[in-house]
């Protein structure tokens, strides 16, 4: 990857990190209700994978999906407005943090039932094949999702139908509060299961945006060529707990320290330095990211709440909610 491309990936990750920080702060200020599942620390997977995709490809994500929405075309302003229950939110404030969706850019949703979106991704890939579009579908999911039935149903169906779908596992070591290794019989919860379904399973450093983009690009070419699905297990770590309710006190200090030193932004800065990009250039990218997110926060704060009448719209395709005559 050349310096220009890497700087672009870095700045995208930087915007996501700062947006996550803003979400965290706004929650503490009482401006974000419900909960948030922050992806700080996992930015390289979203940015690396998205950079390897075409504009018309589809992605499906989980309740921890801020980074995927942002990487896939949603703006910080739209996302923060959604979290803050504003009319200008990505989903008109009907979705919230766990359901960020921007269909127009191929971000086909964030789903809060663990693993539920995996069959949907298979179906979207099936649709791409039926329509002859060579579109690819990427399903992002956590390590915890690998123990639900739909994960295995999805891998099998995608394999037997040889569909263009990539299953990208963000293995952040914890299934909510419990170490995934404590509840899973194989060491690589996603990659180790893939061969049982006739699918290649690979492991990548999920904090290295260059490695992620390379791996997704390679598996994407394979899938588009009709060679079927693949599993990519990206090793990563979340900086925060599972959700706002979780201080993550169960994580060993040494483990946290080790992973914080393996931060995606730091890694990218290292790569940039190796490519001869000066600290000043990186600082300019930081400044642009800071300004974008700061403006987003102010714009979202200034936006109005949704019209209460919107509660009774959008159930049906006619825009309404009528269930009877």
């Amino acid at each position, binding site marked *: 990857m050349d310096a220009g491309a890497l700087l672009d990936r870095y700045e995208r990750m930087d915007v996501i990190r700062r947006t996550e920080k803003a979400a965290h702060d706004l929650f503490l200020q009482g401006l974000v209700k419900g909960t948030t599942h922050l992806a700080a620390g996992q930015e390289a997977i979203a940015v690396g994978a998205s950079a390897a995709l075409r504009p018309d490809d*589809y992605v*499906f994500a989980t309740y921890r999906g801020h980074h995927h929405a942002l990487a896939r075309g949603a703006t910080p302003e739209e996302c923060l407005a959604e979290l803050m229950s504003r009319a200008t*939110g*990505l*989903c*008109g*404030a*009907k*979705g*919230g943090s766990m*359901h960020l*969706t*921007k*269909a*127009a850019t191929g971000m*086909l*949703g964030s*789903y809060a*039932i663990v693993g*539920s*979106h*995996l*069959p*949907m*991704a*298979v*179906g*979207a*890939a*099936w*649709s*791409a094949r*039926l*329509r002859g579009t060579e579109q690819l*579908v990427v399903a992002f999911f956590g390590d915890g999702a690998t123990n639900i*039935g*739909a994960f295995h*149903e*999805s891998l*099998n*169906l995608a394999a*037997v*139908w040889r569909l263009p779908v990539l299953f990208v596992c963000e293995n952040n070591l914890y299934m909510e509060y419990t170490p995934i290794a404590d509840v899973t019989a194989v060491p690589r919860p996603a990659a180790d299961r893939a061969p049982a379904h006739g699918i290649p399973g690979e492991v990548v450093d999920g904090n290295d945006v260059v490695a992620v983009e390379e791996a997704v690009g390679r598996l994407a070419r394979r899938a588009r060529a009709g060679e079927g699905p693949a599993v990519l297990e990206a090793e990563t770590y979340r900086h925060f707990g599972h959700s706002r309710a979780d201080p993550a006190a169960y994580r060993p200090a040494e483990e946290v320290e080790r992973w914080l030193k393996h931060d995606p932004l730091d890694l990218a800065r290292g790569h940039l330095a190796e490519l001869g990009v000066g600290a000043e250039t990186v600082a300019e990218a930081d400044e642009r990211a800071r300004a974008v997110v700061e403006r987003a926060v102010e714009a979202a704060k200034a936006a109005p709440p949704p019209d209460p009448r919107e509660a009774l*719209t*959008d*159930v*049906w*395709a006619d*825009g309404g*909610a*009528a*269930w*009877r*005559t």
Partner: protein
Amino acid sequence: MADVITYRDAVAEGIAREMRRDASVVCLGEDIAAAGGVFKTTTGLLKEFGPERVWDTPISEQAIVGAAMGAAMTGMRPVAEIMFSDFLACCWDYLANEIPKVRYMTGGQVTVPLVVRTANGGGLGFGAQHSQATENWALTVPGLKIAAPATPADVIGMLAAAIRSDDPVVFFEHKGLFATKGPPPPPGHVVELGRAAVVREGDDITLVALASMVPLALKAADVLAGEGIEAEVVDLRCLVPLDAATVLASLRKTSRLVTVEENPYQGGWGATVVSVVADEGFGLLDAPVRRVAGECVPLPFADTLEQQVIPTVDKVVTEVRRLAAY
């Protein structure tokens, strides 16, 4: 086309008509392709449309309905079969949490034009896990349209409407009706979802029924006519949208109401119908409303036991006599 068509053949005919007019209609399900479906409701589709439009799946109900959802979100009109309606429980996340909510929670960004077809109901001695009338399960979820035809012509007409619908539809085909026959509808026949049919006119009492309960209610009405009680029979056809207007209009004539439901009494659709009537048509009533419904037990195997717990002609007749005398 023949003078009559079975309900079973009407399913395949209804799907075929839509597949001919719209290339985005595709089918998936267990044993639906070469085998033609375990109830032979998809016979001939593979031969006419080929394996790129008629797909056999593994026994993976979550993948079937989840994949149908993903395909529907991206430009196709999938028709997914879940073999027995009892098995809807295996993919209940998709019916309860995913398909009906995605349009709403994305602020209208995503539309899910799919049909989930399934063989519903008892009366055939299939035992507790292959006999339930489960349309009430879907009724509890905002965002699903629910169709349950009673005649071959309605199967074809309502399948057309369901497949063309931009909203998700759960389509309950009744196992007990598959062998029944009726006139085939003309080309282009469409029965709009949410339009009930008055299938027998009468002035004395309104019987509201669905799917296999419609012919049962008609038989009961014949018995009652011999006693001088003229029952009007309303075939609801759909639970969502619910044609409450037709029920209320019938009550203006008859002033007495009995719902006939195969599902268990507890939480049955009849409760919704009578609550609407109590709310908006109380003044029309000259007698209490009654619900003939299934008992709140799992469906037993033996015929003599099954008949004890699902509605029968005798049970309906008995209930109507009591109300007529009120």
